[in-house]
């Protein structure tokens, strides 16, 4: 599984929609595609908020607008209403739509689930990009597995 991991601490956005838009700005895609992805993630959140641990949200989807799995980890010191509960860590990821991608998507979900189960509190309290990336078992650089 290949993926790209990006990180943004000190998010300036103050709402769920704004955070998703701010994190998607790090994706290497066009403006219109970014808008469509934001729409898809917003739909997913509206039918069920993706809070997976106290203080951690996991907005995610699969889309034909990306060609490889891309993860962006965002952090807000003030917290973001999601909307009923405040979160300070947002792990947003988008998987591509390819032949084996449902399995890859599920495998990646499983990876994040196990990391959050193991160190959810530490992830929510991590003080640096490096720490959070290590706790999530990612490397900032593009990697193959």
């Amino acid at each position, binding site marked *: 599984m290949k993926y790209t991991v990006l990180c943004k601490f000190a998010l300036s956005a103050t709402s769920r929609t704004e955070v998703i838009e701010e994190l998607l700005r790090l994706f290497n895609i066009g403006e219109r595609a970014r808008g469509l992805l934001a729409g898809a993630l917003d739909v997913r959140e509206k039918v069920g908020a993706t*809070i997976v641990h106290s203080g951690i949200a*996991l907005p995610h989807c699969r*889309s*034909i607008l990306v060609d490889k799995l891309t993860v962006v980890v965002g952090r807000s010191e003030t917290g973001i209403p999601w909307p009923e509960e405040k979160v300070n860590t947002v792990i947003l990821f988008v998987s591509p*739509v390819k032949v084996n991608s*449902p*399995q890859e998507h599920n495998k990646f979900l499983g990876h994040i689930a196990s990391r959050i189960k193991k160190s959810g509190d530490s992830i929510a309290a991590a003080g640096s990009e490096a720490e959070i990336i290590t706790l999530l078992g990612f490397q900032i650089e593009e990697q193959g597995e």
Partner: protein
Amino acid sequence: MEKQLEKLISLHDLDVMIADLNRKDIRKREADMGLHTEGALEELRELREEYCKSINRKWRGLYNQLTKHYGNAVVPALMGRCSGCLTRLPTAVCSDPERNLKIHTCPTCGRIIYWAD
């Protein structure tokens, strides 16, 4: 990007979301993470119905027909080829800077094509 093309891409992503939540393995994984999938699936289906109404009947018909036949109706063009069937797309279309301003279909498989600009 042409509005109807944007809507078809969004419809495709919505269908993928519904298909994923219909998969036992993904549903179980999400439920294990504390995410509510049962109600979400119903709501997504309702949203899809509503969303479809905003799409031109001609394109909606083609989308449904292609989805039924191939499983995916909208695909990106990659290196001048349809990523659904790998047919080389006409050069004139690929090099047109306004290629996403109208809906193009693959001359071989008929899938709806977009360019990731």
